[in-house]
């Protein structure tokens, strides 16, 4: 039997009470904990927020690309393409994001590397950021597909017929007519997807991915000030949402320029 529990030489600062330890209730304590410079953890949280935003932007852009392709595939593709896309959007929308993230996170990089080695190329290292963007982008793509498909269907048929009558090539028509005309119909749905993307980045914490939620968890775990840090993270996410809402309002107004206002339409 060992003599007693071996003691660690690292001393902890004495005199702190239980309440201080749990709550760090004093305002000074909270400010110190959240200060952006070490030993405060504010900088860590902000860095996490930056990573979250990076992933959300990347995932939304990737989702838009997949979504545009997917929408055109669903509308104008052959029967096999249409069925495959239907499987894609159905599966992604029926399975929890957390499960998809785990599956894609492990399977995605593994498959890419196996495919590369099978074709005789060197295997590559996929950074966490790229993996996170790819995984969330894949999920976002399914939702974007539906939003953009709906928006394209909402374009008055006459506009497309007029473009055809002018003899526009499909590419030109896409660039000049379909995309700009679809935008006002798609923006509310896409804006909603952006908000979902910012919140879904938190799920990446579960695969050990460094973003705001994981940064918060680490800070809370080390300092034991769970309430303070989760509250602070909540405030950061909320600010991100509110600022996004503000910008979205502007973009929406811009995309509807020259169209009859919604109030008049009613």
């Amino acid at each position, binding site marked *: 039997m060992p003599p007693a529990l071996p003691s660690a030489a690292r001393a902890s600062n004495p005199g702190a009470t*239980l309440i201080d330890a749990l709550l760090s209730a004093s305002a000074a304590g909270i400010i110190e904990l959240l200060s952006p410079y070490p030993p405060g953890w504010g900088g860590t949280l902000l860095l996490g927020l930056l990573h979250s935003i990076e992933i959300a932007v990347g995932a939304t852009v990737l989702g838009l690309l997949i979504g545009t392709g997917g929408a055109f595939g669903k509308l104008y593709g052959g029967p096999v393409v249409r069925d495959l896309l239907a499987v894609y959007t159905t599966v992604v929308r029926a399975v929890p994001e957390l*499960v998809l993230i*785990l599956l894609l996170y492990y399977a995605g990089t593994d498959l890419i590397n196996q495919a590369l080695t099978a074709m005789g190329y060197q295997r590559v290292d996929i950074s966490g950021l790229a993996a996170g963007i790819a995984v969330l982008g894949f999920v976002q793509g399914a939702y974007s597909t539906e939003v953009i498909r709906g928006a394209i269907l909402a374009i008055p048929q006459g506009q497309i017929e007029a473009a055809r009558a002018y003899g526009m090539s499909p590419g030109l028509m896409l660039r000049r007519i379909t995309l700009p005309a679809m935008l006002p119909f798609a923006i509310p749905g896409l804006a909603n997807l952006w908000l979902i993307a910012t919140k*879904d980045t938190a799920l990446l914490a579960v695969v050990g991915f460094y973003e705001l939620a994981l940064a918060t968890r680490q800070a809370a775990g080390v300092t034991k000030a769970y*309430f303070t840090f989760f509250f602070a993270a909540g405030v950061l*996410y*909320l600010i991100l949402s509110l600022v996004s809402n503000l910008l979205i309002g502007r973009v929406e107004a811009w995309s509807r320029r020259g169209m009859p206002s919604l109030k008049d339409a009613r």
Partner: protein
Amino acid sequence: MAGEATLINAAARTSLWLQPHRIMLILVAVALVLGAAFFMRWDWLPQYYEMGLLGIWRSLWILAVTCFLGFLLAVPLGLAQAAGPFWFAAPAKTFCTVIRGTPLLIQLWLLYYGLGSLFPQYPWIRESWMWPYLRQAWPYGVLALTLSFAGYEGEVMRGAFAGVPKGQLEAARAFGMSRWKIFRRIWLPQAIYRALPTLTGETVLQLKSTPLVATISVIDIFAVSSKVRQDTYLTYEPLLLLALIYMTITGILVFAFSKIEARIPNKIG
């Protein structure tokens, strides 16, 4: 005769659905499933079978309870925003904004790790009848998911209450109904009818949120699959089966809701 007609009808629909390329796709899918069944490891299934069923039961139970409670909470939230005076509307709107503007994961952790770790320092809480519940994890999960559902559905209910045509309420008033009666007989049922189509989507979204409770040590079906992964070091098999389970539950939910919706008269408003 009628039976024969439906049979022919069904056969026609089947043949329309079963085009050659679909048959190919189905064959590919069957091949994939068979491949997964034969080439992947499933020998852990018997050992975790019971635990898995219990996990599914827990997930469904959490889903049902939080949707029900969340909807009850969403009605006053929507009403306050649609018709309440400022001091009711403002807090309700703030609540919905905060819930919708922050990740559920953070809300859950704030409640469980943040709030939950504050309780034990108060002896009266430790001695009260609530303590046996407060020291478990599931009440926090149920609370967080209920609030989340209420936040999203409250916004829907706001629109639903506001969307009930004014004429109906005026007519009810002209009949001399009391305010409570108008609410109970006219306004609320009409608003719920209007909100019903969104309920399918919201319930599926709620189902997809339930695995988050696994991060606060509630053993739902997601936690069971994590356990299998950790015990067997298999990565894909438990996750694939888990995805299949969620897809099945979603399918059943969507089917059940479509049946319910079909029974509700849609000529309203």
